[in-house]
């Protein structure tokens, strides 16, 4: 293996600046996409457990569509095809005047895709609460909406913290797909450094270390939150 090591490029300008800005984009895209995914996914997840077959049908349809098309294809659909299908004025606006088109598209594509996964987690969380609690709530005279609001959702959300954490980490990793439509996030930056300096090893190592450190940090943080928000009296609640 012939390779000239030069770790100093990682702290040299402009490469260090690139890495920092790439990391910034990765974090901003992930967080904003998570806001979309979490809110829409929660609504869909609740819809899937209501008694209305119309609401259930809509949510199920959404999940099947977004889960069964590769995320990369969804990126392309939003970026290249969606503006063409809009009325001419709106399409031109999206293509020409919408601020930061790549960035906005990445957040929407990533958010809408992950919403289908969050939906399934929320649904299984609500379903895991058990019919006994629902029956008790209804017997006490709570409406379906009140049962959802005061009984199911508060218990379910504490239970789904671990799967939602891994969905957030999935968004964080999937944000690298934004490079395919031109967002210069962390993975794109390392590829750029490789092309400019031929020091691919150093550049990819830097990204690898950053991604794993953030992943482990998030997992550690969520573990703390999970312990603090446990529902007492349940298995595994420790008292």
């Amino acid at each position, binding site marked *: 293996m012939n390779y000239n090591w030069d770790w100093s490029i990682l702290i040299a300008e402009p490469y260090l600046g690139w890495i920092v800005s790439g990391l910034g984009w990765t974090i901003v895209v992930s967080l904003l996409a998570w806001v979309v995914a979490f809110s829409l996914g929660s609504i869909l997840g609740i819809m899937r457990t209501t008694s209305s077959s119309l609401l259930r049908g809509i949510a199920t349809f959404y999940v099947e569509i977004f889960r069964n098309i590769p995320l990369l294809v969804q990126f392309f659909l939003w970026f290249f095809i969606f503006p063409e299908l809009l009325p001419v004025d709106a399409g031109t606006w999206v293509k020409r005047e919408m601020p930061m088109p790549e960035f906005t598209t990445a957040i929407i594509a990533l958010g809408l895709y992950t919403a289908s996964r969050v939906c399934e987690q929320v649904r299984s969380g609500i379903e895991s609460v058990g019919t006994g609690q629902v029956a008790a709530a209804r017997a006490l005279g709570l409406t379906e909406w009140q049962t959802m609001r005061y009984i199911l959702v508060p218990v379910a959300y504490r239970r789904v913290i671990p799967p939602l954490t891994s969905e957030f980490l999935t968004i964080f990793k999937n944000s690298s797909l934004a490079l395919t439509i031109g967002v210069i996030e962390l993975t794109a930056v390392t590829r750029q450094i490789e092309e400019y300096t031929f020091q691919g090893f150093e550049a990819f190592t830097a990204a690898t270390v950053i991604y794993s450190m953030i992943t*482990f940090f998030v997992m550690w943080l969520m573990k703390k939150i999970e312990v603090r928000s446990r529902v007492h009296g349940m298995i595994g609640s420790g008292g």
Partner: protein
Amino acid sequence: MGAFDFSVIFDNLPFLLKGMQTTLLLTAVAMFGGIVLGTLLALARMSSFTFLSVVATSYINFFRSLPLILVIFWFYFLVPLALGRPVGGLYSVLVAFTLFEAAYYAEIIRAGISSVRSGQAAAARALGMSYGQSMRFIVLPQAFRAMVPILLTQGIVLFQDTSLVYVVGLKDFLVSAELIANREQRLIEMFSFVALVYLAICFSASQGVKFLERRMKR
């Protein structure tokens, strides 16, 4: 761009089929390699040798913390360097997918092995079987039987993930369609077609898995 013209799809069907073959080949190899390597990793992780277990756990956590695209870039860059000669994208991508998927399969298989009642392994050992024999004849067959639906579901995810070879320009289904779309200026038709094909395959496959799951429960 003009009106929709779906004849572009039929005219280029052989080229698209060839792309789909690459996609399916990647899925099959990565799934097979991932399950084999994943089984070894799962056994290592559950082993009582601390060293083995630490190595396997680190491998699994490490790969699960990385974006697949970064792993693809790594091997696209590393494999030719390690071999000292250029080897086309296909081989480096096959290695990347197999090693990456193994980490995900290992966790599925570990859960499957844990779900086999411990009495089964103990009984096998009591009958005089070695560790290898008890795994091979008693524990793994039961574990795999229970895991079939999850392994297949992961296969569907993998099938979708293979589209990421786009970043190194390997001509899979998506890249083939994109080449035609750009050459013929038929982006809408080609990308809608790609989305529909993926949707049809993944939806039917996931319904198939559901059906299998129901039948196994009976």
